[in-house]
């Protein structure tokens, strides 16, 4: 579970790197990468986070 979160962290860092690059150097390649790959990875990472937290909360609630 924590492994998945670490993956999400690394993905987020890559995504942020792409986005910041596009802001510092607004030329076609970085801007396109940020708005496609960057935002894709960011969304994926957030998905992993939500999935993990939901699983965690379910695990903690008493069995029916």
């Amino acid at each position, binding site marked *: 579970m*924590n492994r998945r979160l670490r993956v999400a*962290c690394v993905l*987020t860092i890559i995504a942020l790197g792409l*986005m*910041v690059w596009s*802001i510092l150097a*607004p*030329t*076609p390649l970085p*801007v396109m990468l940020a708005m496609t790959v960057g935002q894709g990875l960011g969304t994926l990472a957030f998905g992993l986070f939500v999935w993990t937290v939901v699983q965690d909360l379910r695990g903690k609630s008493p069995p029916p």
Partner: protein
Amino acid sequence: MSASPLALVAISAAGAAVLVMVWFLVRRPALTRTTKVALLAGIGILPLTTATTGNVAGYEAMKTRRFCGSCHVMTPYALDSADLASEGLAARHARNEAFGDENCYTCHSDYGMFGTVTTKLGGLRHAYEYTFNFRQLSLEEALPKIHIRQPFPNSTCIRCHSTKNPLWLRVGDHVSTLDEIRANRTSCASVGCHGAAHPFSHAIHHPAEVAK
């Protein structure tokens, strides 16, 4: 590089998010409520802030002539617009403060309800075409192959030049072609009227006319 407030917000949010990420990766804390809240900020809220402000900054950057001119096949267009001596129609729209630095986008974007979206999709197609079909070509090889996809609509000119001012309506050629202009049958930017918009490319596309 843009030092706009938006860019600052985007970069600060990214910096804060990275701090959270590094903390989590290095300290490997247990998944307590505090950890979850920190991660919600680090993976969710802060990156989302970077993405949205970065998006706006990106859209702004994409409107500039510098951006359009940064693919090598567009450099002659950008150079012509930057040339104060040029009498091409595009260049004559490149000197005003209102939109001179964004003149390519100003003429070459769709207006209307979904204008921004269709223009962005068109831009994506351009990026695709460039990456896979034009990147390897030299300027000499590429220029003859670059054409406007749909005839340039007069409505774009009319957005700014209303065709309703008395002085404008006193120009003989405007009067005699008014219906055709408004119906888009005669292009404002045709040679003999106010074209060519890009004289150098016109010379390449229509060598016969120039030889005359």
